[in-house]
């Protein structure tokens, strides 16, 4: 079974993020790392391929620069190869633009299953995977907390607020996985060294038949009009126990409609 995992390389969340004052976009010119939320998808894919007894995991990613550090991490985990779409015309792409690029790249890999995280850790739109599914004409199942493949179908336990739904879908399909679907492995030294020689196929938008009217700033249908500072959190209320603390805590929780 061949699985494509959509992965995003993002600025290290441990470092303070910076916004471009002109475009309001996140500055992504420096070193990029594998989005932590994608490690779950990579691990899930590796386990599914292993369980199927054959096939390989291909990474598909888009980056405005030719950065591959994050891809190397996923390759070191065990993915076989990567397709990186990297092109200046992609800068300023919105979620749909990104989905067009990813969908075109995924088509080349002809996968049995496409896996993505529910959302990225830097953008948080959570829309790209379902747009990819739509563009590819594939069914999509989101928020998977468990994934099993049985022949030509994928069985998913889909996280809901109340519990989970059991969903079965024919393959190929797009499945988004939550953190916690599996425990991602860490790349070993052997994995890290092996990743050095694994192929990363670097493509431009034009290679995929896309131009500046469809992707990048020119193709974007979303515009970030302004950015404002998040409101500072106000100090919490301290409940001093004078014998009635439990009642006051319950009252407070009822106000929040938690109870």
């Amino acid at each position, binding site marked *: 079974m061949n699985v494509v995992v959509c992965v995003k390389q993002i600025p290290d969340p441990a470092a303070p993020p910076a916004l471009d004052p002109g475009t309001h976009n996140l500055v992504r010119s420096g070193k990029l790392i594998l989005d932590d939320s994608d490690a779950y998808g990579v691990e899930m894919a590796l386990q599914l391929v292993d369980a199927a007894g054959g096939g390989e995991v291909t990474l598909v990613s888009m980056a405005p620069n030719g950065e591959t*550090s994050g891809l190397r991490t996923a390759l070191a985990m065990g993915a076989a190869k990567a397709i990186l779409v990297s092109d200046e015309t992609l800068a300023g792409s919105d979620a749909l633009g990104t989905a067009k690029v990813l969908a075109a790249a995924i088509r080349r890999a002809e996968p049995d299953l496409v896996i993505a995280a529910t959302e990225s850790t830097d953008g948080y739109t959570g829309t790209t995977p379902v747009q990819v599914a739509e563009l590819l004409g594939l069914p999509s199942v989101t928020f998977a907390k468990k994934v099993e493949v049985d022949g030509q179908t994928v069985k998913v336990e889909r996280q809901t607020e109340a519990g989970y739904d059991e969903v079965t879908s024919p393959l190929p399909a797009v499945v988004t996985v939550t953190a916690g679907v599996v425990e991602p492995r860490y790349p*070993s*030294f052997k994995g890290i060294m092996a990743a050095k020689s694994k192929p990363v196929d670097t493509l431009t938008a034009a290679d995929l038949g896309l131009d500046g009217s469809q992707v990048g700033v020119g193709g974007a249908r979303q515009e970030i009009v302004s950015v404002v500072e998040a409101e500072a959190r106000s100090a919490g209320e301290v409940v001093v126990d004078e014998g009635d603390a439990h009642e006051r805590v319950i009252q407070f929780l009822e106000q929040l409609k938690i109870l």
Partner: protein
Amino acid sequence: MQFTEEHEQFRQTVRGVVERSIAPYVDEWEEAGSFPAHQVFRVLGEAGLLGIEYDPAYGGQGADHSYTAVLGEELGRIDCGGVPMAISVQTDMATPALHRFGSHELKERYLAPAIRGEHVASIAVTEPDAGSDVAGLRTRAVRDGDEWVVNGTKLYITNGTQADWLCLLVRTSDEGGFRGMSQIVFPTDTPGFSVSRKLDKLGNRSSDTAELSFVDARVPVANTIGQVGMGFQQQMAQFQNERMIASYLAVGSTSYALERTEAYVRQRRVFGAPLLANQSVQFRLAELRAEVELLRQFNYACAEAYVRGEDITRMASIAKLTAGRLARSVADTCMQFHGGIGYMEETWVSRYYRDARLLSIGGGADEVMLRILARMDGLDTGL
């Protein structure tokens, strides 16, 4: 030492494993007085961290020693001394001689499971009457046909209550002194072996330390590591790995302690200004950071010499001596700069203070390092 992108990725792997599988449990393990070595070592084994330099034929990673330096520095950032010590006993104290001198069968049976993290290993050298003075050890193995019959006692043995096997140094002849010793892989399910007691220590509490007893315990002569009678020499070589990893760990732990102390003196206000506004505080931190950097670079020089195959006895002894003394200075300064809160168990400082003290004692005390250096430098007059 030339560090590459691969070293950085490997560092992230170690850091990730520590953050996910060790850091959240350290307080609990310190409280309990031991940590679940088998459970933790399985995780480390799966990430390939227990046999970095070892032959891939036995499950090792086949990396060069520079990656061990990275491993040590990162393990040193664990918020206690016990767990990093226990891990490095497995990787750099109990197994190097087996890898270097052991037979293929012995490596398949004991090294491979230790690399996978299925076996926990201990290094059993110290005895009630022989620690720094290794030549004085008395535990004896007498040959009876194809077996060694072991009698004696070992003391202060890290991982001692949980170990599946020991790298045991014993007398196998009456030659005396450093002659006539052998290293034996000793499985702890051998009849006649027992853990006499688990020891209560000042620090490194998350790591179990034991006194071990051997009464007519029989192990195959085939379990001898390398040559019969060469145990002392083989152990001396193994001690070099122990001293190098101890110095790498010290760079990690002192760096981390100084980072946290810096953060504290920046935010702690005294007499209307941050504590760091005092030049005496700035200078002390700058001085200690400089000393850590010197040790780090010296460690790298030592690691390079080791990779080149040189005898690193002198360098490893200098590194270990320096590391022990530096750890004590850093711990003392961190405690002083934290003041009363640092003396409380609720902060990391008190644990660090007591854990750091061990480095000048274990793995060859400062005085043993000085004795080696005095002898190598021709200062020992022999009188």
